[in-house]
């Protein structure tokens, strides 16, 4: 996750002998894969999990360092500089998560409209919710928001992820989400004889031209696609009900 690098990347310098397993914060679950059938990455920031100590590894000359994902571990000689440990941990984590670059790859393939720039708020005090707004806050908001939309872009462009039985994905008719006009929903959809929300139309398309199964309203893929479609119509006037 990108915000990890901004907010809480830290490396520990090892200088203690007794506790031989040390938890280093720096890994996270979010970037391992974009939201697909299970919720992940689309909103939950990786939190630093409690350092865990393994009683089995008591080797005085080396030390096991555990990433805060609780899974990724490297064994290094005592006195190894923290930056080197961090590098090894990262390399190990990347090896186990070959798709961790999905977000950059998706952004390169398919242009995404940027989320709003809130940098004017930096330095202001906003009471209970925000405290004093920092550049990190602003970066976090943007990164996280765009990540959900990027995850949506990935589903939108992937017939397999959409569950199409005939190899059809949304971008075939809607490159860059053109002609999706989310700003006109909800509206009375004459062909359905009732009021439709954007997600109703997404599901209609999934069931008919795409020939897949409708998604639940809270399916991470549905949430992500709504985010993407709305993101791509940035700047358009909301005109619900418009035909």
């Amino acid at each position, binding site marked *: 996750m990108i915000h990890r690098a901004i907010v809480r990347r830290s490396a520990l310098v090892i200088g203690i002998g007794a506790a031989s397993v040390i938890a280093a914060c720096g890994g996270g679950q979010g970037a391992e894969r974009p939201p697909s059938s299970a919720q992940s990455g689309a909103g939950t920031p990786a939190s630093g999990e409690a350092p865990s100590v393994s009683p089995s590894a008591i080797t005085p000359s080396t030390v096991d360092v555990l990433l805060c994902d609780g899974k990724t571990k490297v064994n290094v000689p005592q006195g190894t500089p923290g930056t080197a440990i961090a590098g090894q941990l990262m390399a190990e984590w990347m090896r186990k998560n070959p798709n961790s670059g999905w977000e950059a790859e998706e952004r390169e393939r398919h242009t995404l409209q940027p989320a709003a720039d809130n940098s004017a708020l930096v330095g202001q005090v906003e009471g209970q919710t925000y405290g004093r707004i920092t550049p990190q806050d602003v970066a976090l908001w943007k990164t996280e928001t765009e990540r959900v939309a990027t995850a949506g872009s990935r589903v939108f462009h992937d017939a397999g992820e959409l569950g199409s039985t005939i*190899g*059809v994905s949304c*971008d075939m*008719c809607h490159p*860059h989400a053109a*002609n999706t006009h989310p700003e*006109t929903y909800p509206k009375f959809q004459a*062909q359905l004889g009732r009021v439709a929300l954007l997600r109703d139309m997404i599901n209609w398309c999934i069931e008919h*031209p795409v020939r897949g199964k409708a998604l639940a309203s809270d399916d991470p893929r549905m949430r992500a696609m709504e985010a993407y479609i709305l993101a791509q119509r940035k700047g358009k006037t909301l005109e619900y009900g418009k035909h």
Partner: protein
Amino acid sequence: MDGPKKNPPRVKGVKSVETKHMEERDELYRGLKDLDRRSFLKVSAAAFGAVAGAGIFSPHSFQPVKVAHAQPVTGKVEQFRFAYISDSHLYERSLNDRFINALMRAVDDVNNMNPQPDFVFYGGDLAQLGQAKELEVGAQILKNLKAPVKMMVGEHDWYLDMGDKWRELFGQPTYSFDHKGVHCVVLNSVVEKDFWTARKLTPQQRMQTVAGLDNGVQSPFSVGAEQRKWLENDLKGKPANTPLIVFSHSPLYKLYKNWNFWTDDADEVQAILKRFNNVVVFHGHTHQMLTNRIGNIHFHGFLSTAWPWPYAPEGLPELTVQMSRPDPFNPNDGCGDGSALVHPDGLADKIYNLWNRNPVTVSKNYTASRGTKDKPSVPVRKSY
């Protein structure tokens, strides 16, 4: 891509070898009846020259004679009509019958035309992912057309095997022919710069990348220096009043780069076409009613049988009369086929046969008058 051949074989569509042979033989004898002795000698010499020049010897082929015979002599141009089908994006039948059925509908449309068109032009993107089976099923369906077929390549046909299968089925992608006094040129305008080697993409990944209209990893389309040179040679010596039709998969102008509604070297290609009085370019790829005119060059887009594209958010030519926004509840809306009536001056009436709607004609008077005369009706439901 492979370079265009100096004497590219005439692409006769998808008929069997036997049919082609018999047709060529019949045509040869028909042609010979019209010749007096002197011109027969001329034609024979030209044929021999063409064979020798191309370095080929094919005793079973009558093509060189036919090519020599087809050279315009009188400059008299007859009106004719050709039909078009384009952008069918076929998957294998077992995966997707929707696009297959759409192409079969188009074949029926064309076969029901009365009188039959002189030929049927296929505008490219027969396949969706360039697979042999996709191209084969397409060729199979197109065999049902009664009129002869001329083929053009699209990016979806090409980037899995760089055109191997397509060439095997249909011949060279770059060629020219003369029809009733009009010189027709077919280009491969979907040449992309190598974006795949450095990224270590597999052929499947390369194809998948190109298949995404809004995929920004691929490079812009171009005709390329090699084909531009071929085009110059092909047009060399032709007088400026030769009516000229150019077929290209992408529009031969710069509309919207992000979707490759674009040809990167369009300016250079247009410069080659500039000296002719009347040039009409027909293109696929854009899946919509699209009209443009740049100087002496009139541009018309083909409809797709598979799905319509939205209009580009910018760069739309002023002359374009948009089609009504397609209704998503009707899977064939905004799709279709059509035809063109080519007049003796080389300009054309372009007929968009929109399925489930009234057909729309963009007449030669409309483009010739730069939109002041004969304007097609404006759509009720515009794009958002």
